[in-house]
């Protein structure tokens, strides 16, 4: 099916998320939509999928103009979508999820789950997915959940399949598998729209590339174009994401973790006998596919979770059972992975967000009251030093873009005397300019002789920043290797192979 978007415009208040976007995807073509975080890719696809209504413009399928009132209309017209955040019901089985919304039924509206199972098995076998129709979705690893999403779209005869940042949760090997699946689907006649900001993937799989920036199409590119050309188109200027690091001056062990075990909500060892050391002036990156215990490890390190065994030492001090406040006072800076949930209070101003981890004493509080004059001065300094683009320091944090929100968190955590920095997904959902800035700051912390722990699922980020890399898999550390280790080896480790 040939998909055409003609002059799609979508506004949210004063913000123009999509500005007269034109896009043509031919039948059986893999068309990459390349753009930075916040460029308007997902908005465009939500318009295509009927979740948003466009203010202007037409969606044309095989020459026929369509108006979608909701996702149901879009699906009926042959559009399927695999969302970045999976649209699956965790407590339902695979078969139930696949047929939800177009269920086969018997008498009295009863569900015909046998037909549903057969449908799942048939599609699963056709593409070699190996999915059990009766498995509960919440029990499946993310890679398998994504395949369930693809089955869901194919079960409705999707002729146009939209994949929104599909590789964010996959290992390099799983990414390769997904690309194989995409090529197979395209060969079978499905048109694929592949939304991403990763140049490597675009070059590997796309037939054609459309680049969008700040809500508008900046041009078409060919997969044979160099990464530098694509990056320049995407960001609007030459980008250099490599960081210059001095050779590490390894000092004393700043953080020693021994035999740390954390029991999760379902009585499983989400962190399983983990031991490592981070030296002063060193960046240790913890790599791994999302959901392998990295979150819980970080939360245990800062006192948000109680370990069931093992110890955490900051220098000579034992902080295994310290409260969060004691950990903060010991000089641990923490950039949480989800800034809007754990990093900021969205309804607080920027200045208020700067003080929330030091609300009880100087420099922000004087006795029982807030030292407003001091706070105003410090906030102004931080906004300036960390390049937070905001109308004022009394702007609510939730009004800022992702990159600027992250800079507020980074500014708060780095602006005090630290003995350890823990940064979890420090650049997730952040624009390239902010990524460069945040990476520089993290390296500056290392150069200042502090131990730094980076937790990231982005392999590029891990290899750029780290001095050593620890790979986590199913709660355990599979191995700790040098930062120059090849992507292939790291990928195998992320799938559980020991070195």
């Amino acid at each position, binding site marked *: 099916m040939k998909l055409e978007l003609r002059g799609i415009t979508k506004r949210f208040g004063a913000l123009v998320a999509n500005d007269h976007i034109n896009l043509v995807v031919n039948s059986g073509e893999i068309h990459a939509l390349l753009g930075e975080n916040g460029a308007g890719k997902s908005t465009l696809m*939500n318009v295509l*999928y009927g*979740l*948003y209504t466009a203010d202007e413009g037409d969606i044309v399928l095989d020459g026929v103009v369509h108006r979608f009132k*909701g*996702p*149901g*209309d879009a*699906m*009926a017209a042959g559009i399927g*979508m695999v*969302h970045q955040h*999976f*649209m*699956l*019901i*965790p*407590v*339902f089985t695979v078969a*139930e999820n696949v047929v*939800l*919304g*177009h*269920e086969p*039924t018997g008498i*009295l*509206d*009863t*569900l015909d789950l046998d037909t549903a199972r057969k449908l799942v098995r048939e599609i699963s076998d056709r593409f070699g997915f190996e999915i059990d129709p009766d498995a509960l979705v*919440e*029990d*499946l*690893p*993310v890679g398998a959940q994504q395949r369930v999403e693809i089955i*869901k779209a194919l079960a409705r005869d999707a002729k146009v399949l939209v994949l929104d940042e599909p590789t964010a949760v996959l290992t390099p090997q799983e990414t390769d598998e997904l690309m194989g699946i995409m090529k197979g689907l395209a060969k079978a006649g499905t048109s694929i729209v592949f939304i991403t900001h990763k140049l490597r993937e675009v070059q590997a799989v796309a037939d054609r590339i459309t680049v969008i920036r700040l809500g508008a199409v900046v041009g078409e590119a060919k997969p044979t174009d160099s990464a530098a050309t694509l990056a320049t188109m995407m960001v609007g200027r030459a980008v250099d994401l490599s960081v210059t690091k001095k050779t590490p001056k390894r000092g004393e062990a700043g953080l020693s973790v021994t035999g740390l075990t954390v*029991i*999760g*909500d*379902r*009585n*499983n*060892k*989400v962190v*399983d006998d983990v031991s490592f050391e981070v030296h002063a002036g060193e960046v240790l990156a913890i790599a791994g596919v*999302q*959901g*392998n*215990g990295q*979150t*819980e490890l970080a*939360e245990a390190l800062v006192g*948000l979770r109680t370990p069931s065994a093992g110890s955490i030492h900051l220098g000579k001090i034992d902080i295994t059972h310290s409260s969060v406040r004691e950990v903060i006072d010991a000089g641990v800076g923490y950039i949480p*992975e*989800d800034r809007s*949930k*754990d990093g900021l209070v969205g309804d607080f101003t920027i200045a208020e967000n700067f003080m929330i981890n030091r609300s009880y004493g100087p420099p922000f509080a004087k006795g029982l009251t807030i030292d407003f004059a001091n706070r105003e001065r410090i906030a102004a300094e931080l906004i300036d030093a960390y390049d937070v683009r905001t109308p004022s320091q009394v702007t609510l944090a939730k009004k800022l873009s992702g990159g600027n929100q992250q800079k507020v968190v980074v500014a708060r955590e780095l602006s005090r005397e630290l003995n350890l920095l823990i940064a979890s997904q420090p650049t997730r959902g952040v624009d390239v300019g902010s990524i460069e800035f945040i990476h520089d700051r993290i390296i500056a912390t290392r150069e200042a002789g502090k131990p730094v722990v980076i937790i990231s699922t982005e392999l590029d980020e891990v290899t750029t920043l780290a001095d050593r890399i620890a790979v986590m898999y*199913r*709660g355990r550390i599979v191995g700790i290797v040098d930062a120059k280790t090849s992507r292939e080896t790291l990928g195998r480790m992320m799938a559980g192979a020991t070195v």
Partner: protein
Amino acid sequence: MSTVVTPGLFSQVDVSVSKKTPYLMAAFAVFVLVAFGFVGKTDIVAFQWSKEEDLIHLPDFLVASNVVGLVLGTVLVAIAVFSFVLAQRTRVTPLWLTLVFGLLAVVALLAWLAAGNTLPFAFILGNAVVLAVPLALGAMGGIMSERVGVVNIAIEGQLLTGAFLAAVVGSLTDNLYLGLIVAMIGAALLSMVLAVFSIQYLVDQIIVGVVLNVLVLGITNFLYAQWLSNDGQNSNFPGTFPIIPIPGLSAIPVIGPALFEARITTYLAYVIIPVLWFILFKTRLGLRARSVGEHPLAADTVGINVAVTRFWWVTIGGLVAGLGGAALTIGAVGAFGRNMSGGQGFIALAVVILGRWHPFSAAAAALLFGFSIVLRIWANQVSPGIPTDFITIVPYVVTLIAVVGFVGRVRAPAATGKPYIKG
């Protein structure tokens, strides 16, 4: 605090089974053995299984109170020991065993209370069912609402509305069936207010629920004082539905008269509970409803209308709760009283949670609470010396033990209480 963690990925902890269930059991077993057995009363208890007029009349079973205590106490000790053995072998005491334990402990207590008296078993069970019906129906309304993601604090108000309208309309028109229908519609309209405010206008569901409860209480109190108490003969004297024995079933000894010599409100509950279970777990309608309560955005992306689904399930849930309200008046005592529901809507809310949003488990939980109410009434009559409060807590203690016996966490529908805002 945490992101989506894929379970099954991690190695399970070798759990040593907690011994709190066996210890609790042992404490209760020893208490029963000593208090009701060794130092128990020697008077004779007459276990009355059936009434004279029952088709199959079982003779009363006469036994000394302390003998019952000794026998049951020994059985309880045996169960407790068995539970210890299970825990030693890292196995959890099964739920049914915990329930049997609770049941036997309560029987021992009853035998002690009724020393020198009769223990009207059929009477207690039959009344427990009658008292459980409004709770169960209120809980079904709550389940319907919460399964699609709307917290229904307003069950209390819906019960009260149903109770009032059933009594008044039944009385004025002299037609109880008309009273029943109006009661259901009235409660459904009240539920519709909750639905519109929480789904359309995104007002906090708890606040709307509380406001509705206070509103209904105020209106019915006012009307009762100004109207019903002066004109009771015309407007608040509906009588009750006739008791219809079901041929055959009602002849079953002990449980027959308790379950199958009942009013239409009770029989409707017998129908509604399994039907709701069937719809929720076996049909397309139920699958869609549950998807809306678990992950509304996901439901939306496959073309399910979240707002419409929520609206109708909440409204129909009100209809069912209204029936429960009618059961309070024309299904039981035959008149409306000030604040008739008296917090039963909130108990129904507890029943929803104890029953884990499942119709059958909720019905069992409702029966437990029904039993506790009748126990209080009866115990007060036979043994006036014992503080009623003490007797009243017994079933709740049993409930607590039952909950301790539950393995795994109670999990509400994931989107309960969260408004769904479309982009």
